[in-house]
């Protein structure tokens, strides 16, 4: 049988038979990526906004640094986090190696620069657009920041989605710090890698299709939101 056809059948079977293992892996993937995304947004959105609207010495260097970090190789991040949290590392006492917590930290390091850089670009654009108006209205800084973030919400949603995409699809870092332990740190991407190495290609592909479906659904919802916003010229 064609391997693609087999993979599609397998993926449907896994989903519609409510396969326990699949849903455990899927939920852990969403949990790890979701938590790392929320934490990255909590850091990245204010930091990106700060970089966009404040002038200070070394600002350009900061932006270059974050832009460069957007392309951080996941395995390198995984290795660094591994060295930091392994028993002999400075944070070894936390005992978080091969736990979802270490995976969340690794993913945060990967996606925070994306959130910071893209937020900074978006907020810089809108703050320039509103600059004269806000100066004329004597808008206090905190109200200006709220207005920037609110009015750029649709663009920021795209940023959040980009972060989520990076997190959910990432394998290199989580496999190093998580160890791909069954029922503990096994997520979609590490399972795909494992099944591929075992030669179980149709199952690997089936998991890939499910992962892709999640990404497609999320993107579809966001694109619909953005099209609606564009029609009203809110973007």
């Amino acid at each position, binding site marked *: 049988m064609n391997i693609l056809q087999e993979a599609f059948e397998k993926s449907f079977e896994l989903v519609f038979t409510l396969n326990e293992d699949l849903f455990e892996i899927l939920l852990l993937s969403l949990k790890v990526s979701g938590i790392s995304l929320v934490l990255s947004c909590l850091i990245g959105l204010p930091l990106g906004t700060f970089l966009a609207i404040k002038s200070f010495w070394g600002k350009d260097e900061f932006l270059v640094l974050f832009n460069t970090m957007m392309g951080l190789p996941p395995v390198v991040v995984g290795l660094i986090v591994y060295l930091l949290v392994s028993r002999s590392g400075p944070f070894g006492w936390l005992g978080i190696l091969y736990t979802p917590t270490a995976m969340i930290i690794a993913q945060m390091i990967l996606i925070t620069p994306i959130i910071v850089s893209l937020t900074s670009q978006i907020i810089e654009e809108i703050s320039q*657009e*509103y600059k*004269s*108006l806000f100066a004329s209205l004597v808008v206090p800084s905190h109200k200006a920041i709220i*207005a920037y973030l609110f*009015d750029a919400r649709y663009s920021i949603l795209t940023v959040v989605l980009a972060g989520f995409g990076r997190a959910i699809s990432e394998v290199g870092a989580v496999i190093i710090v998580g160890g791909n332990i069954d029922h503990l740190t096994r997520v979609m991407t590490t399972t795909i890698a494992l099944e591929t190495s075992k030669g179980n290609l149709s199952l690997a592909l089936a998991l890939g299709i499910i992962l892709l479906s999640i990404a497609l659904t999320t993107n579809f919802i966001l694109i619909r939101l953005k099209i609606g916003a564009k029609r009203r010229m809110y973007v």
Partner: protein
Amino acid sequence: MYNSNKKNLIKLTPIEVIDLSVSLGKDLILDKVSCSIKNNSITLVIGPNGAGKSIFLQTINGLTNIDNGKITFNKIYNNDEIRNKQAMVFQTPTLLRRNVKSNMDFVCNVKNKNGKLIIKNILKRVGLEGYDDKPARLLSGGEKQRLSLARALLIEPSVLLLDEPTANLDPFSLKLIEEIILEESKKGATIILTTHDMAQAKRLASDIIFFNKGKILEQTEANAFFRNPLTKEAKKYINGEILL
């Protein structure tokens, strides 16, 4: 119906501009300009493109840095309290990426005003009644400018600065904006407005400031200016000749 009772406005006038110089980058835009703007006047700032009219307005509104000279409002230097009683309408209106009502609400929020009823009345005044939910950036050019003016009116400004508010507008918007300018003046506001429209200047102005190449060449009462301009540049400008 319009209420002609004068508002209880903070007195920001006379506005005294003394030896004011403003540069943008290396370009000197305003070159030691001096003038006095009387209380409750409608002062039309006219002059060719690039003469410095818009920067003059923006400097009064505290939006540009001053190289030299000073501006005082009833003998007080510009500060946030004074700026809170000024409103500026830009030539190209900047509207928030929201609907009409939210654009108005934002000003209320910034100025800590409870403005539900006021907003309704002002939108009616500028001909935008029933536009509450319409996305602001989908309005026509005239409607955008009227919304921009509505936001300014919400502040109940003592000094209203208008930078070519009727440029490229249809007759309906032009008439409506001019009526509102006259109404605000009757209520006690001091109005400073830039324009290239000589007919409009004649209709509205109590005083004229004529700019050319960053300098004020004339400041006089409107009737005197149009009857007998003192400089050859002003004569040429009124007659529609090109100033080089």
